[in-house]
C-alpha cells in the first residue's frame, strides 16, 4: 500500500487484532484508504468484516492495533464523538428508525448539530429558527438525492427494503460526513434498486471517502477503486476488484462459504 505518500490517508489501520475469549475474529488487518477513495471490503460470512467496521468507527475496542482517521488516533475515543467528527456509518440490520417517518429519520440524523434547547423550542428562539432553516434546506437536498421526496411522511418501517437502505444513506448524509462506512448497503436489493443505489453512491462520492462492506461483487466492481479481501479474520489481498476476484484463495473461500 504505497500510493500517494504525500497525503495522510483518510482511514488507516495498523495490524488490527480482535479476540473474543478464545476465538480470534480479526488477525493483523492493516489498510490505508486515501481521501476521496471508494474502498471495498469483501469476504465470506463471519469473516470479520463487520467486526472490522465496528473497530474502525470505534464501536468495538480492538485487542491490539491502531486506527487513524484523518491522521488522528481514534482508539479510546467514544463512538458518538467519532461520529460527530463527520464520520458516518450505516448498519447491516436495523438500518433506519423504523417507527418514525422519513422526515423524522432525517431529523434524527441531523439532531446533534442543532443548537436550540427545550426552552428555545417552547419560545421559538432565533437559534431554533436558524436550525430549522438549515435543516430545511439540507433535508430537501438529501430527499432529492435519495429520491424519497414523495415519501417524506411515510413511516420508515413500512418502506420497501431497498428504499430503507437509501434512507439509511440519507440519515448518514444529514451530518454531511467526510468519511462514510457502509455495511452491506446493497444487501437484499433487487437489480433495479441496486442500479439506483450505485448511481446514488456515485452522486454523493465527490469530496467524500467511502468504505463499503459488500457481498454483491457487481457493486464492488462498479464502485470501488480498490478492495480488501478478509477470510477468517485474516487479510488476503488488496487490489483492484477484478484482480482481487481472480485470486485463488478468494475463489476457494467463496466456494466454501456460499453454501450456508
Amino acid at each position, binding site marked *: 500500500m504505497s500510493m500517494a505518500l504525500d497525503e495522510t490517508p483518510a482511514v488507516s489501520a495498523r495490524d488490527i487484532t480482535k479476540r473474543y475469549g478464545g476465538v480470534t475474529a480479526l488477525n493483523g488487518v492493516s489498510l490505508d484508504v486515501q481521501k476521496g477513495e471508494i474502498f471495498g471490503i469483501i469476504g465470506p460470512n463471519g469473516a470479520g468484516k463487520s467486526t472490522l467496521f465496528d473497530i474502525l*468507527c470505534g*464501536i468495538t475496542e480492538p485487542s491490539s492495533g491502531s486506527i487513524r482517521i484523518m491522521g488522528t488516533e481514534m482508539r479510546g475515543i*467514544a*463512538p*458518538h*464523538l467519532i*461520529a*460527530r467528527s463527520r464520520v*458516518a*456509518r*450505516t*448498519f447491516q440490520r*436495523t*438500518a*433506519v*428508525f*423504523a*417507527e*418514525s*417517518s422519513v*422526515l*423524522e429519520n432525517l*431529523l*434524527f*440524523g441531523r*439532531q*446533534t448539530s*442543532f443548537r*436550540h*434547547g*427545550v426552552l*428555545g*423550542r*417552547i419560545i421559538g428562539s432565533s437559534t431554533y429558527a436558524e*436550525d*430549522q*432553516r438549515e*435543516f*430545511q434546506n439540507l433535508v430537501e437536498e438529501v430527499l432529492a438525492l435519495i429520491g424519497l*421526496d*414523495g415519501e*417524506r*411522511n*411515510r*413511516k420508515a418501517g*413500512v418502506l420497501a427494503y431497498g428504499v430503507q437502505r437509501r434512507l439509511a444513506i440519507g*440519515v*448518514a448524509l*444529514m*451530518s454531511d460526513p467526510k468519511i462514510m462506512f457502509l455495511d452491506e448497503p446493497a444487501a437484499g436489493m433487487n437489480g433495479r434498486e441496486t442500479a439506483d443505489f450505485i448511481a446514488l453512491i456515485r452522486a454523493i462520492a465527490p469530496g467524500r471517502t467511502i468504505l463499503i462492506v459488500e457481498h454483491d461483487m457487481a457493486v464492488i466492481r462498479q464502485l470501488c477503486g480498490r478492495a480488501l479481501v478478509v477470510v477468517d479474520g485474516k487479510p488476503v489481498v488488496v487490489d483492484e476488484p477484478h484482480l482481487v476476484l481472480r485470486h485463488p484463495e478468494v475463489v476457494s473461500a467463496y466456494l466454501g462459504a456460499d453454501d450456508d
Partner: protein
Amino acid sequence: MAKFSSIGTEMAIQDIGTVVAKRQTSAVDNNASGRMVREIIYVVCAVAGIAAFGFSFSDPFVVTLAGYTCAFALFALSINVILGGVGEVPLGQCLFFGIGSYGAAIGMGKAGLPFEVAVLIGLVLSVIWAAIIGTITLRLTGAYFSIVSWGLTGVAMVAANNLDDLTGGPLGLFGFPPIGIGPLELGDPQTYFLMTATILLASILFLVAVRRSPFGAAMESVRQNPHLARSVGVDVARIRLKAFMLSAPLAALAGALSVPYTQIVTPEVFSVANTVDGLLMVLLGGARLVIGPVIGAAMFTLIPQVLNLDPNVRILVFSSIIILIMMFAPGGLHQLSVALRERFGRKKDVDGVR
C-alpha cells in the same frame, strides 16, 4: 419554513398519538395550522374539564380521590419518561416517589418548613440521587439499571425503617400542620384536586415540549435504535442519564402531592407495589403517548373503586393484561390503533403503485 414547522408538529402530533400519515406534501401546510388549532382546543378543553369537575363536584370522597389520581398519574408520567422515552424499565422509580413524600413530610413535620419549600428540597434530592444511580448503572445494559434501581428501593425502605429520628421509623411520619401552598389550603378537597390537576396538565405540556426538542429527538432515536443513534453522534448513555434525571423530580412531585391525601408517610412508599401500579398504568395507557399514562391512571384507579376489586385480583388481572400486551402489542393499546391504521394505509399504497 412553513414546511419545516410541519415537521415539528409531525413529531409533536405523534407524541399526542395522532400521527395521521399524510400522502401528499401539498397537504402539509393547512394540516399543520389545523393541528396547531386542534392542540390549543385540546388544552382549552382540558382546562375547562378540570375546572368543571373541580367546582361542580362537592363530594369530598370523589374529589379527593380524583386529586390523588392526578398525583399518581404524575408518577406514571415520570415512569414513562424512561420507559416510553429511552426504552429502559425503571423498576426503582418509587424511590423518588418516596423521597418526595419523605422530603415533604420531614420538611414540614421536623424542620417546620412551608410545604412548597419542603417539596422543592425533595425534588432537588431526587435529581441528585438520580444522577448518582444513573451514572453507576446506565452505562451498562438495561438489566443492570432495572435491577439496581429496584434493589435500592429495598435499601431505602430499610433506611426509612431504621433512621427513626429522621423518618419516624416503621410507623412513619404523620400529624402534619395544615398543608397549603401560599393561600391555597390543600386540606380542602376541591383545592387539592384543582392543584394536582393543574400541575398534572402543566407537566404534560412540558413533556410534550421536551419531546419536540432536540433532546426529545435524541431520546426517541435512542429508544428506537441505540446503535444507529450512536452512529449519528448521540451520546446514548448521557441521554439515558438526562432522561432519568428528568423523570426523578416528576416522581418526587407525585410523592409530595400524595401526602396531603394520605396524611401519613410510611416506609411502605418505597414498596415495589407502587412502581408496579405505575408501570401497569403506563403499559395500559400506552407508553408511546404522553397522555397514555394519564388514561391508564384513570382506568387503574377508578375501575377497582367501582368494582371494589381485591388488590390481588387487580394485580393478577392487570399483570396478565400487560403480558398479553407485551406479547402482541409492545407499544400498548395505542400501538394496536396505529397498526390498524397502517394496514389500512399500506393497502392504499399498493393500489397507488399499480
